[in-house]
């Protein structure tokens, strides 16, 4: 299959998912409310006089994103379970790779929307100045999110068809999220402390390598999760 086709088909799958999402808006609204609630839980879950908000902000940001991403990932293939929609998708004359890429793109857009909401809320609730660091912060978030979501999309294709789907996905995917999470937190801490950018380049490189490896691996492995 030529690569323009791969990407075109991927976009068709992604836009279908996004259209379904846009028309109901249930999942994205629930995820947005979830983000707000997690942030409020963090506010009340720690003693501000002991640990200052600004010290904890990077951790809050990343823990919130991790949980919100898992919530979003569960949704991706659940959509396809009703009315055997997955069978229809698999019968379509397109490469398995484009189905995966399409799901990945739709998930990325979904998670990015939540993150777009999360960053200003963290800045607002926890009084963190993010405006001067917006560019590098966006880079960290983008790189870490691609890694998370690449593995998560692959795993959710499997877990939605098992027992205890909602419980199993976090159990499987969290060990894979923690390495990028830890690099992202370390980079964010240094960034928000106004350290020179050269200090975070190493973490960004790690995140980029993780992304490349796991997107490629997931593309190769995805057919094994759907082929009978």
């Amino acid at each position: 299959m030529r690569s323009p086709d791969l990407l075109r088909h991927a976009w068709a799958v992604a836009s279908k998912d996004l259209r379904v999402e846009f028309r109901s808006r249930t999942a994205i609204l629930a995820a947005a409310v979830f983000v707000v609630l997690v942030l409020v839980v963090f506010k009340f879950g720690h003693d501000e006089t002991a640990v200052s908000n600004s010290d904890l902000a990077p951790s809050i940001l990343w823990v919130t994103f991790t949980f919100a991403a898992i919530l979003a990932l569960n949704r991706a293939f659940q959509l396809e379970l009703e009315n055997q929609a997955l069978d229809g998708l698999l019968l379509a004359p397109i490469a398995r790779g484009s189905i995966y890429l399409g799901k990945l793109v739709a998930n990325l857009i979904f998670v990015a929307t939540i993150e777009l909401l999360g960053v200003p809320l963290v800045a607002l609730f926890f009084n963190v100045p993010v405006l001067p660091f917006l560019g590098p912060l966006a880079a960290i978030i983008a790189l870490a999110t691609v890694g998370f979501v690449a593995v998560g999309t692959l795993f959710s294709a499997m877990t939605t068809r098992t027992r205890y789907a909602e419980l199993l996905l976090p159990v499987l995917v969290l060990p894979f999220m923690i390495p990028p999470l830890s690099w992202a937190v370390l980079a964010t801490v240094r960034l928000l402390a106004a350290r020179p950018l050269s200090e975070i380049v190493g973490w960004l490189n790690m995140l980029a390598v993780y992304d490349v490896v796991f997107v490629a691996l997931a593309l190769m492995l995805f057919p094994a999760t759907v082929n009978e």
Partner: protein
Amino acid sequence: MRMLRVGQWVTAIALLLLAGVYVRALAYTPVEATQGLAQKIFYIHVPAAIWAEAAMILVGLASIFFLFLKDPRLDRFAAASAEAGTVFAAIVLTTGPIWGKPIWGTWWTWDARLTFTLFLFLLYVGYLLLRSAVADPAMRARFSAVLGICGMVEVPFIHFSVYMFPTLHPMPIVLKPSAPSLPGSMLATWLFSVGVFTLLYVGFVVQRYALSYLGEQLEAAGESGEGHA
């Protein structure tokens, strides 16, 4: 079944030899100068850690070959290796704190290599949970192969990030580019122990493999309507 019997014998011999490791470590190996007797746990801890990690790599390799060859034997081996690996990771996670308490003064620290083993353990548990959550054998084999490969690929990432964190752990003293910085008698005990743990791994895997084969036969017999009379 013969294979099960073989596995049981190998395990029994390995357990006997493990007692031998203790005898050799306690009676015939010098006491380490700074750590005293606490260091004896090294002869159990490190070989178990080696096999905990090696078992994950074998799970990954078996999974790769499974996806190409679709041979159920490879899937059975991967499952067996994962279970044995879980046991070894649990040994590392229990002996580590026991060693850490007298030497570091704390049961647990978020030390890099401790964390790494915890990750490995969680990967194994996830793998076994996924296996138990899928009823269809063909689907179970494919799903767990995918997870096994991802797990193997993640190992170097955790390993690498481990060296970027400050650590309380001693740096490798045996498996390193230069010669082992260990007295000969300690090295001999340690190598003996690695051998014993290898045998233990083989014994566990052979038994587990035989058991899952028998389980499959039983399931197949149940499905074909003959039942277990």
